[in-house]
């Protein structure tokens, strides 16, 4: 729109019951506010919480969202309306970015919960906690109209041209639908080694802790995933991911064994810069159910050159 202002919009069209379109994301980015070291992002966006959540799904290295993101942030991750202030710390040898965000949870779809859902109709709709029924992943963050405050620190020390390591710490607070105070913490890391023209080894992981305070009692939930990915050339990519996560609104707080687990093997073939075919085998063990083996397929088709996302640093 203007040299220091850009506007991004991501529209989605799909059919569940009826064919419908929606605005997944639409935000303006002011790269630099005057001569200050601050930038700002305004609009509807994926919250810059953690490493995977801010990334648009077709840029992920896997077909699905890891279980801790599904269980503790929402079915499609956390998306909402608000503003993020970015500050790049002045440093010669360390990329260090601080982000502060303020969002309003004014739309259930923002958290991946369709408007018309009747929770009792869901196969997975279970559990009555504090007298309220919840869908498995629904409303994991909070309630309509509530303010959500968040912060993130991303660090990437400069090593050399072939190695890159990144660390992140994220935190958010809001109020749940039932009035509980809700706090979510996250820690993440990523190591990438680049060799040759297109070879790349990537090791990454994230850990979340979800905590609710209700009438003097605390409820803690946790989850993590680890991903290893190897790209031997420009076409192929092999990945292995392990997920472990409790659910935000299920079972007693002390029931650590009540966690979902999944092991995934991922194979991606890149046809060109932005088109790829992906197969993901997932061995899923839901907390209350028997093991399921699933085969997920993804075809992403794009054309023309476009910008490549800088993972988790915007």
């Amino acid at each position, binding site marked *: 729109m203007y040299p220091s202002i850009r506007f991004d919009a991501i529209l989605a069209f799909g059919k569940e019951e009826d064919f419908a379109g929606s605005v997944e994301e639409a935000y303006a980015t002011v*790269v630099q506010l005057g001569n200050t070291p601050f930038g700002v992002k305004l609009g509807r966006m994926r919250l810059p919480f953690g490493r995977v959540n801010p990334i648009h799904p077709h840029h992920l290295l896997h077909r699905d969202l890891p279980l801790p993101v599904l269980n503790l942030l929402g079915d499609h991750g956390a998306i909402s309306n608000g503003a993020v202030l970015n500050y790049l710390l002045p440093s010669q040898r360390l990329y260090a970015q601080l982000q502060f965000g303020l969002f309003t949870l004014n739309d259930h779809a923002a958290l991946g919960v369709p408007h018309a859902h009747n929770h009792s109709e869901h196969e997975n709709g279970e559990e009555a906690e504090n007298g309220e029924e919840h869908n498995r992943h629904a409303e994991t963050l909070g309630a309509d109209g509530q303010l959500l405050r968040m912060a993130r620190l991303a660090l990437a020390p400069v090593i050399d041209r072939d190695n890159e390591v*990144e660390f992140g710490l994220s935190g958010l607070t809001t109020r749940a639908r039932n009035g509980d105070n809700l706090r979510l913490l996250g820690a993440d890391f990523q190591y990438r080694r680049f060799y040759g*023209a297109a070879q790349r080894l990537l090791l990454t992981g994230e850990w979340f802790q979800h905590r609710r305070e209700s009438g003097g009692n605390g409820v803690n939930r946790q989850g993590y995933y680890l991903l290893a990915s190897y790209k031997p050339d420009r076409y192929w990519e092999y990945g292995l991911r392990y997920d472990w996560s409790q659910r935000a609104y299920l079972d007693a707080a002390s029931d650590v064994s009540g966690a979902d687990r999944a092991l995934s093997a991922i194979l991606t073939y890149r046809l060109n810069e932005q088109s790829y075919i992906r197969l993901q085998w997932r061995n899923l063990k839901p907390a209350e159910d028997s093991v399921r083996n699933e085969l997920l397929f993804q075809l992403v088709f794009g*054309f023309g050159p476009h*910008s*490549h996302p800088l993972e988790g640093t915007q």
Partner: protein
Amino acid sequence: MMKRLWMLWLALVALPSAAQVRVVTTYTDLADIVKQIGGNRVQVSALARPQDDFHLVTPRPSMALELSRAKLFVRVGMDLDLWADDLLTAARNAAILRGASGYVDCSLGVKKLEVPTGRVDPSMGDVHIYGNPHYLFDPANAKIAARNILEGLKRVDPANTQEYQRGYDAFVARIDEQLKRWQQALSPHTGMPVVEYHKTLTYFLQRFGLQQLATLEPKPGIPPTPSHLREVVARMKNAGCKVILIEHFRPRRFPDAIARETGAKVVVLPAAVGAEGTTDYFSMIDAIVNRIAAALAGR
């Protein structure tokens, strides 16, 4: 004490670390041209490594850090280095954004080839809507890129305009001199057909009068397919084409298979300064010219 610490902090974050102009380019060939014009008045670095496939550079936080401190950003443009756009956003340095004084698009003024006309759709592969972006392989276009860089350096560091002008004049003079030598080296082979992996040398081949018979990619950015390769083999045999040109970062599997069937020679070319032992723009073009001339001569 607090005041001193505050002053020290301000000095560290607000003042330039040296008198040199900090320049960041997307590719190493542009970094070399900046160095040749700016000499020791510039401190230049390239975001992509010489071994990178220029289409597939992965943006990284360390690159955003480099851009955050740059006074001048120099790019190829024409969407080749579109991968740098998110880095520019992440770097939060308004001085080097599009339209700012520290932004240089070297494609300005280049006579563009293969600009698509009419409809552009996914069936055309990774087509660049502004045309083929590999113009720097034509030395005459390197002079245009150098002119754009010169203007950028003058804008951000007007005090050293004369120094930059001298550097630019010397670069252009050397290109003109070398261009004659390169044309002489390839003139015995005018009109001869070559096959490329990707349309990287379109500008180069036009400059030196060589014929691009086919590419191993059926469409830009699309991996070779068996049916397309069969067609390429037939065309090479018909035309008596004996040379397959590939950039240094391409896999050898497909060109080697075609070479076995046709008896052609696979020639690996440096597609970036720093690749294949090259040290500057001139040695890169030297290597390309010499290797193609030798292959076409059957050596």
